[in-house]
C-alpha cells in the first residue's frame, strides 16, 4: 500500500506475479497461447481487460505510458485506460510514441518505429487464429501442438476463390518464429510487417479468453500466403488530408451526407508530429478527399474499423491526455 486505495497499478501483487509468470512463459515460447487466470477488471470485456492486466503487470513507477485505440490517443478507450493508470499507478503518460516505455494498443502498431526497451501491449479479443475454422478448442490445441496448420490456408484459399485476392484485411494470421500460428489481434494487415524483427517486446493479452502470448524482440514473424498470391500490406489509396502523408495507414472519414469524405492518418501522434514539423496537406490530398473511393477494399476496411471501435473525428491529439471528455462507456 502506498497510501492510496490501491496497490501500485491496481492489481494485487499475487495476481501480478501470476501474470508475469504467464508472460515469461509466453516470451519463452513465441506465439504460444499461455492460459492465465484473468481477473475481473473495472471495465467491460472487449474494452481491453487483457491488455490492461498485462500493462499493470509490466508497469514500474518509472515508466511512461502511452495508450492508443486504433492509432489514436484521444478516443474513449485510450483516454479512459490512460486515466485509469494515471490514477492507480501514478505513472507519467505521453502521446509521443518515441517517449513512451510501455504502449498499450488496440488494433494498431504505431507508425514511428519502436525501439529497444519499449513494450507494446496488444488488446486481443480472440487469441485463437483457428477459432472460426475449427470450433472445438481441444482440437485447435492439438493442431497447435502438432503444427497442423493446413486449415489456415483453407481460409486464405476461400478468400481468393470468392474475392480473387486474399480479402482478410485485419487479424491476418502469422507464423511466429517458424512454429506457432498466431492471431496478431485485429491490427490491419498493413501493420503485419512491423511485427517481424521488431526491437520492442510485443505482448498480447486476451482477458475474456484468458490467454497471453508474446513476440519477443527480433523474432521473425511471417504472414501466411500462397506462392502465387503473396502477402501484401495494403492501405487505402489516398493521402492524409491533414499532414499529406501517403505512406501511413489511413482512416476514411465521412464528412457530410453528400458523399464527401476524407482520409486522415490513423496514427494521431504520427500525424501531429508531421504537422508540427511544418508538413501539411498537399494539393493531391485535397483532390483525393473530394473524390469517392475508387478502391472497394479501402472502403470495406474503413467500414471494418468503424464497426470495430467508437467513431472518431479527425481532431488533433489532446496533449493533456486525460483532459478530453470521455463519453459513456468509460468504465
Amino acid at each position, binding site marked *: 500500500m502506498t497510501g492510496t486505495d490501491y496497490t501500485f497499478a491496481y492489481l494485487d501483487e499475487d495476481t501480478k506475479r501470476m501474470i508475469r509468470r504467464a508472460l515469461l512463459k509466453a516470451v519463452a515460447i513465441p506465439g504460444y497461447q499461455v492460459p492465465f487466470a484473468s481477473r475481473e477488471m473495472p471495465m467491460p470485456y472487449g474494452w481491453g481487460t487483457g491488455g490492461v492486466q498485462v500493462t499493470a503487470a509490466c508497469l514500474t513507477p518509472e515508466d511512461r505510458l502511452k495508450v492508443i485505440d486504433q492509432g489514436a490517443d484521444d478516443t474513449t478507450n485510450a483516454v479512459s485506460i490512460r486515466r485509469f493508470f494515471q490514477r492507480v499507478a501514478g505513472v507519467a503518460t505521453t502521446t509521443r510514441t518515441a517517449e513512451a516505455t510501455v504502449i498499450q494498443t488496440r488494433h494498431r502498431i504505431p507508425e514511428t518505429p519502436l525501439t529497444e526497451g519499449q513494450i507494446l501491449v496488444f488488446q486481443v479479443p480472440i487469441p485463437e487464429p483457428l477459432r472460426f475454422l475449427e470450433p472445438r478448442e481441444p482440437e485447435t490445441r*492439438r493442431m497447435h501442438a502438432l503444427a*497442423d496448420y*493446413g486449415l489456415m*490456408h*483453407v481460409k486464405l*484459399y*476461400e478468400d481468393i*476463390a470468392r474475392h480473387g485476392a486474399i480479402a482478410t484485411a485485419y487479424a491476418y494470421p502469422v507464423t511466429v518464429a517458424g512454429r506457432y500460428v498466431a492471431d496478431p489481434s485485429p491490427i490491419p494487415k498493413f501493420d503485419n510487417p512491423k511485427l517481424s524483427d521488431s526491437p520492442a517486446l510485443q505482448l498480447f493479452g486476451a482477458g475474456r479468453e484468458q490467454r497471453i502470448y508474446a513476440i519477443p524482440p527480433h523474432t521473425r514473424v511471417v504472414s501466411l500466403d500462397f*506462392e502465387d498470391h503473396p502477402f501484401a500490406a495494403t492501405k487505402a489509396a489516398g493521402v492524409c488530408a491533414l499532414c499529406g502523408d501517403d505512406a501511413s495507414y489511413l482512416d476514411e472519414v465521412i464528412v457530410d451526407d453528400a458523399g464527401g469524405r476524407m482520409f486522415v492518418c490513423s496514427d494521431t501522434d504520427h500525424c501531429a508530429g508531421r504537422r508540427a514539423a511544418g508538413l501539411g496537406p498537399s494539393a493531391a490530398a485535397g483532390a483525393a478527399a473530394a473524390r469517392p473511393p475508387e478502391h472497394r477494399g479501402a472502403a470495406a476496411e474503413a467500414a471494418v474499423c468503424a464497426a470495430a471501435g467508437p467513431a472518431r473525428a479527425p481532431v488533433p491529439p489532446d496533449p493533456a491526455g486525460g483532459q478530453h471528455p470521455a463519453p459513456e462507456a468509460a468504465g
Partner: protein
Amino acid sequence: MTADTPLLSVRGISKRYGARTGCADVSFDLWPSEVMGIVGESGSGKSTLLNCLAGHLAPDTGAILYDTRAEGPRDLVTMAEPERRMLARTDLAFVHQNPRDGLRMGVSAGGNVGERLMATGARHYGRIRAAAIDWLGRVEIAADRVDDPPRAFSGGMQQRLQLARNLVTGPRLVFMDEPTGGLDVSVQARLLDLLRGLVRQMGLSAVIVTHDLAVVRLLADRLMVMQGGRVVESGLTDQVLDDPAHPYTQLLVSSVLQV
C-alpha cells in the same frame, strides 16, 4: 514394400466399451490393390473395427501393421500422433457414411478438395485449384461448381465430393463406412460404378464396412462377416455369399429381398 508384404496386417484387435464388447480379437491381412468387405448387422462391431483401423479409436489390445512407403511395416497403434496424422492425410483416407462428417460444410468444394494438399504443404493457389477441378471432374462434378459450398450439393454429389477430397493426395488405403448409406438406389449405382472405376484405376486397397450385400458383391474381393464383435466367417466374396457356411451368414444372405 514387396509383393509378399501385406499392406495392412491386423493382429488381434479388441475394443471394449466398459463391460460391452465393441470388437474382439479380429485379425486379417489386406494385400495391395485388394478390397475387403466387412458385413454384419447393426451393432456387430464393424464400425468400431473400422474406427480402430483408421486411428479414430484406440484399440485395447492388438496391433495394426501398415506397410509405410518409407520404412516398411509400422504399428499404427503405437505410432506417434504427428506421424499418424501425416499418414492419415497422405496414405490413408476415410469416407464417412454421412458426408457432413467428412466435409467442411461452410467451405467451398474446391477448398474441401484442396485441404489435404494444403495440409501436406502445397502453397500454390493455382495448382491447388487445378488439382481440385481435376478431381471434381473425376468424380463427375462439373467444374463450375468448384466455388459452391457442399450444402448446395445433393446427397450423392456430397458423397462424391467426399471421395475426391480423400483421394486427392493419392492414398493407398481407403476406409469406407457405409459409403452408399442414405442414397437412393440409382444414385447408389452411380456411386458404386465410380468407386469401382477409381479403385481399379488407382490400384487402391480398401476396407468397406456395409450392411448392403450388393455393395460388397460389386466391390469387394474378400469378405468378413461379423457378429457380436467377432469375425464368424471370412473368404472370397462370391464364395461366402454363394455358399455361406456359418448359420449367421446363411441367415444374412437369405434375408436379402429379391425383386
